[in-house]
């Protein structure tokens, strides 16, 4: 069964460093997403991406965040200068379409620890 894959599964970084989280969405999906889950809290929407541009972003997705599709398969989330409060599980996800009937499938998550 096709799945969303993410790397790395866990990364520890020093405050102020740049981090890139990588994702390979399901191959026939057109919409890609990043969500964040701070430990013990709910899953929060960060950004959606379609046709090589941001479709929508939340208030959490400020200037230190960026997304990119550098090639035909990878979808990346870059955090420019990490802060302690960026420590969280980051989920990549994809769906065939944007309308609500299209199920979002999530990857296994990348656990980011900022020290």
């Amino acid at each position: 069964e096709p799945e969303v894959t993410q790397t790395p599964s866990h990364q520890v970084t020093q405050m102020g460093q740049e981090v890139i989280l990588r994702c390979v969405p399901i191959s026939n999906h057109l919409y890609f997403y990043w969500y964040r889950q701070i430990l013990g809290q709910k899953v929060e929407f960060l950004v959606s991406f379609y046709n090589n541009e941001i479709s929508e972003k939340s208030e959490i997705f400020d200037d230190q965040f960026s997304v990119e599709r550098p090639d035909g398969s990878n979808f990346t989330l870059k955090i420019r200068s990490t802060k302690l409060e960026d420590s969280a599980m980051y989920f990549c996800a994809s769906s065939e379409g944007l309308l609500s009937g299209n199920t979002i499938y999530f990857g296994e998550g990348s656990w980011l620890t900022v020290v």
Partner: protein
Amino acid sequence: AQKVTQAQTEISVVEKEDVTLDCVYETRDTTYYLFWYKQPPSGELVFLIRRNSFDEQNEISGRYSWNFQKSTSSFNFTITASQVVDSAVYFCALSARDNNDMRFGAGTRLTVKP
């Protein structure tokens, strides 16, 4: 505004007991979709079910069943004869106009003891 409430923060049961996880939602949209996801200790989010607002038929899949009631804005999830492997955090989610609008509940941590 959309909102999903999972009032049960944690539930603990003994294996083979039945357990129901509650989900109450709010939305002004007449067309919307409800979801349940499972997050096992390994951390991934596993899709369990999607239900649209026009289909109030209850669904059963093995030991899992879902009860959707528009009258009470609820979409509850029941696990029959629970097993230790059911231990996870379960999230209810709502999506109305499009997937950018998807909102998750706070999750219910289910612990099934042997």
